[in-house]
């Protein structure tokens, strides 16, 4: 009785012709089949959710730095532990132009006279210069934010390391896909 519009035969009170809706209406889409198919789709989604979290396409390749990157990190920071957190990196997942990849770096670490963010370090794993740039601050800056544009040779991890005046290291990393070589 309470069939939605677009269902039932041409004699039905609720029949709406597909032309009237201006979009294709599948004849077989009744309430019963819709519920059945949506339940199936939900089940499929739930089943795939477990594997999707681990999918390299979604998450990017492994976060572990390779030997060259580890050497650079060791030269710069010695054996000090680099922990994750307190830094955010805003960068497009897919860079439209690898010659100009915009980065926005922010940190929620305190910025007081005796405890402040001494610097941000940008490390790009697959660039010719792995240690791409360092930005050193003093407490006069007031807030640890940074906005710049970098070049990337190919799809790679971008790692940001924030160094505090007390010598702590906090980091974040993002995998960015690029299509062209940006070494100009």
């Amino acid at each position: 009785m309470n069939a939605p519009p677009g269902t039932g035969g041409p004699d039905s009170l609720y029949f709406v012709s597909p032309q009237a809706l201006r979009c294709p209406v599948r004849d077989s889409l009744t309430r019963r089949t819709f519920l059945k198919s949506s339940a199936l789709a939900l089940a499929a989604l739930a089943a795939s959710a477990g594997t999707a979290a681990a999918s390299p396409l979604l998450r990017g390749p492994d976060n572990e730095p390779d030997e060259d990157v580890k050497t650079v990190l060791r030269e710069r920071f010695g054996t000090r532990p680099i922990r994750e957190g307190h830094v955010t990196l805003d960068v497009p997942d897919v860079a439209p132009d690898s010659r100009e990849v915009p980065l926005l770096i922010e940190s929620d670490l305190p910025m007081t006279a005796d405890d402040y963010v001494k610097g941000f370090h940008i490390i790009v794993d697959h660039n010719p210069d792995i240690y791409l740039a360092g930005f050193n601050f003093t407490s006069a800056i007031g807030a640890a934010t940074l906005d710049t544009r970098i070049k990337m040779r190919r799809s790679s991890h971008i790692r940001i390391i924030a160094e505090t005046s007390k010598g702590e290291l906090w980091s974040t990393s993002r995998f960015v896909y690029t299509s062209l070589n940006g070494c100009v």
Partner: protein
Amino acid sequence: MRDDIGQGKIILPAKISRNAVINIRALLSHPMLTGMSRDQAGIPIPAWFVKEVEVTYGGDRVASFEWTSGISRDPFVGFSLRASKEAPLTVTWKDNKGGVFTHSADVKFTTTTAEATR
């Protein structure tokens, strides 16, 4: 070759109040060549990029940047500053060929747009 190399600007927000954290944008015209590209005749183009950047505020050094050629052409950098005094903000870029470029803007507690070129 481009003729605008070394031109640049420091952009301050239009409204600055005392002790507010303001956003500074510094822009320089520079090719930032990595030394890995070649010209049309196949001759390598030598590296030419900004290596050091120094930011002073009223004579005090507040930030310094250490760059490689991985920073994009016409390098742009945006950062914060606590506007604690009315003083000039000066940014000095130094490239690997000995070029030194300096631009500054005056931090003033007014509501006018402060924009400086050279």
